[in-house]
């Protein structure tokens, strides 16, 4: 075993700022995947300008065909390419770096990257040629160019290979004994993400391959309802990869910024296990207003099998701030319910980004997601702009902002550069996060009034029987425009700071380089860890916040039932 180990020609660098150990191949792969992700974010962000300024009724900028093309590309570049490239970097970090292990099969990992890159470029070219404005969902029988599907398939194969490189790295770490006992909680969360990713990408392949064959004329027909059912097993589940990944990042940030220990390893890991078992069922939410699917199937699936996955998210939502509270109280911030929170490092974008993400994900994304995912309530918002309002709260406030926060940690640690513009970096999570909160809220408001998503003109120009939306709907969409523009500025700041730091930031010491890994030690059992389960609450402030969350959740949930009860009778 040792002979094999030394035969691998690589080096390990210990970062003097974080103590983390980076293997040289893994480090290059992380850098290249993260940088590509940011390029996708840049493209998607530029496209966001077109989307926002067209849906802002007073501006109504782009022509209809350009708008639908830009919207298709914005969706795919953000939801798929930005997020999954970054997630691959996170997977390599959680395996190779946290376990201090060389990455498995680096050449195959480069192949995975190459396939993903080619796939992303091919898909984007197809969209910008104009014949593939089919939206991210590409519902058949509306067809895109064959290269649209081919690009997605190549990308998916690459991402699948990257997942297996991650699993392989875990095997190597175990075999070469780079750590003792169980993997860290954050790695456990990354394993959850990767398992869900395998399910997700396989579903994508099952439906996109026949659709590709249909686009080149080899398959006669793909059933529209079966397409929707299987596509969403890909489309929604891919968002569940994000949830598992960004929650892992929240745990990591709590550990990095506070030295916080998980309150209970059993609870947090158990919650991740619930994700593996039940989170994929959420894809059924997209089919609630569809014909041909039985009520029982809808109720079981849309409740994520009796809401066990929602339970898991509610657990993480408590344990992460709870762990921070315990760590802060141990440092002496013990006054009252909230001194621990007031004295948190609000000027550190790694922490502020993570905390704004956590609160927004729970209150805006979580509550709205459960509401719209309830079988009957879905009738109120299906295909309205409430839906993008919800998922900008989960995917942008939740995932994207978490990734941004992590990037601020990675610039000195992984990229070995001093961050430029630290003052702007302090501001960026607030500007981006809060404008996104506002943007999501007004989109949900407009959706509650019935405004459609993916719609070029709310004035219905050219329609024989045009409908006149109430003035409040126009006001809401104007506010969507304003909030969106501010959020785009916040996103642009992130790109300026990160790209600027990588290009022009002061070079930092790379630290000691060694041909051998140093095994990772276990967390020291501290006194705090052993007092768990004692009488009384260790995190009363967090508990109060959680109860506030619950009350908001219950009220909003039942308000919507009341609203539903006033509609036409349907049976």
């Amino acid at each position: 075993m040792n002979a094999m180990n030394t035969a691998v020609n690589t080096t390990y660098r210990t970062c003097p700022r974080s103590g983390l150990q980076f293997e040289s191949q893994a480090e290059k792969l992380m850098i290249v995947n993260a940088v590509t992700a940011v390029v996708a974010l840049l493209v998607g962000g530029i496209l966001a300008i077109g989307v926002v300024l067209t849906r802002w009724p007073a501006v109504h900028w782009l022509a209809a065909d350009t708008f639908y093309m830009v919207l298709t590309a914005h969706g795919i570049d953000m939801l798929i390419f930005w997020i999954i490239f970054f997630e691959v970097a996170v997977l390599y970090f959680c395996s190779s770096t946290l376990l201090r292990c060389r990455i498995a099969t680096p050449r195959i990992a480069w192949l995975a990257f190459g396939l993903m890159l080619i796939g992303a470029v091919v898909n984007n070219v197809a969209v910008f040629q104009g014949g593939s404005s089919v939206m991210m969902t590409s519902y058949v029988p509306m067809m895109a160019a064959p290269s649209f599907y081919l690009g997605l398939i190549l990308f998916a194969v690459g991402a699948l290979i990257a997942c297996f490189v991650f699993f392989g790295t875990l095997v190597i770490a175990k075999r070469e004994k780079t750590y003792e006992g169980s993997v860290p909680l954050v790695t456990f969360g990354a394993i959850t993400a990767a398992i869900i990713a395998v399910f997700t990408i396989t579903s994508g392949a099952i439906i996109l391959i026949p659709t590709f064959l249909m686009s080149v004329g080899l398959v006669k027909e793909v059933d529209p309802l079966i397409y929707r059912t299987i596509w969403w097993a890909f489309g929604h589940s891919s968002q569940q990869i994000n949830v598992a990944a960004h929650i892992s990042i929240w745990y990591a940030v709590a550990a990095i910024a506070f030295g916080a220990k998980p309150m209970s390893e059993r609870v947090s890991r158990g919650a991740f296990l619930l994700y593996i078992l039940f989170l994929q069922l959420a894809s059924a939410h997209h089919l609630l207003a569809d014909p041909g699917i039985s009520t029982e199937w809808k109720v079981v699936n849309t409740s994520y099998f009796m809401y066990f996955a929602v339970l898991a998210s509610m657990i993480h939502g408590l344990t992460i701030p709870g762990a921070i509270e315990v760590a802060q109280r141990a440092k002496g911030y013990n006054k009252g319910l909230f001194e621990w929170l007031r004295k948190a490092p609000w000027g550190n974008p790694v922490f502020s980004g993570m905390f704004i993400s956590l609160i927004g994900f729970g209150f805006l994304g979580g509550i709205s997601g459960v509401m719209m995912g309830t079988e009957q309530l879905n009738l109120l918002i299906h295909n309205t702009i409430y839906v993008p309002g919800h998922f900008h709260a989960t995917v942008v406030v939740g995932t994207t902002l978490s990734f941004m926060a992590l990037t601020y940690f990675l610039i000195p640690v992984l990229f070995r550069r001093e961050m430029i513009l630290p003052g702007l970096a302090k501001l960026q999570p607030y500007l981006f996060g809060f404008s996104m909160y506002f943007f999501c809220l007004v989109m949900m408001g407009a959706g509650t009034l019935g405004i459609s998503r993916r719609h070029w003109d709310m004035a219905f120009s050219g329609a024989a029987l045009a409908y006149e939306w109430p003035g409040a709907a126009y006001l809401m969409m104007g506010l969507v425009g304003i909030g969106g523009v501010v959020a785009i500025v916040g996103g642009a700041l992130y790109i300026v700071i990160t790209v600027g730091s990588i290009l022009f930031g002061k070079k930092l010491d790379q630290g000691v380089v060694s041909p051998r890994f140093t095994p990772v030690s276990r967390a020291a059992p501290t006194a705090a860890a052993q007092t768990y389960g004692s009488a009384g609450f260790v995190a009363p402030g967090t508990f109060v916040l959680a109860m506030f969350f619950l009350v908001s959740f219950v009220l909003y949930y039942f308000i919507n039932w009341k609203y539903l009860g006033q509609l036409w009778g349907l049976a």
Partner: protein
Amino acid sequence: MSAILPPAERLWWKHPLDRVEGTWIVIAFIWCMVMFFMMVFWHVYGKQNLSTETYKTTPDMFTTKAQAMVDKYTVRTETDKNIPVVHPPVGSDVYLVARLWDWWPILELEKNKTYKLHLTSMDYNHGFSLQPSNINIQVVPGYEHVIKVTPNESGTFSIVCNEFCGINHHSMVGRLYVK
């Protein structure tokens, strides 16, 4: 920094949980059960449940049925396109065609009476979005969805298409009257 380190205790699944966590898990679990049973409850006692009655269909089959209804029950036409306004008998089967880019025909229903509304698409996916009531249903080609509807308010309603269906998607608006 222990969430990024292997746990101190080898048997992490025996790690005790704090009272904060235990209490919260119980509360959250009860709330999850409430939400689960709420959907079931509404199926028994609520009046807004989407029907699941669905048949496979083809554009020809569906158009034939819709045309028969239009021929029999048209009361007038509207706009310079002469869109028929159909006033079907109470309780009857009512057909609404979704196609690029209109809803056909215009329906005229009676308040507090129940109809069996048949929906399908002739081409791509469309979205039935009844405004200003805000009832939203997916319309999928090849599938005939039969929904019992009971309008509880009179007035003029619009049916906006809220599933992207091509370049003139924004002009796909239909009308429905309730007397």
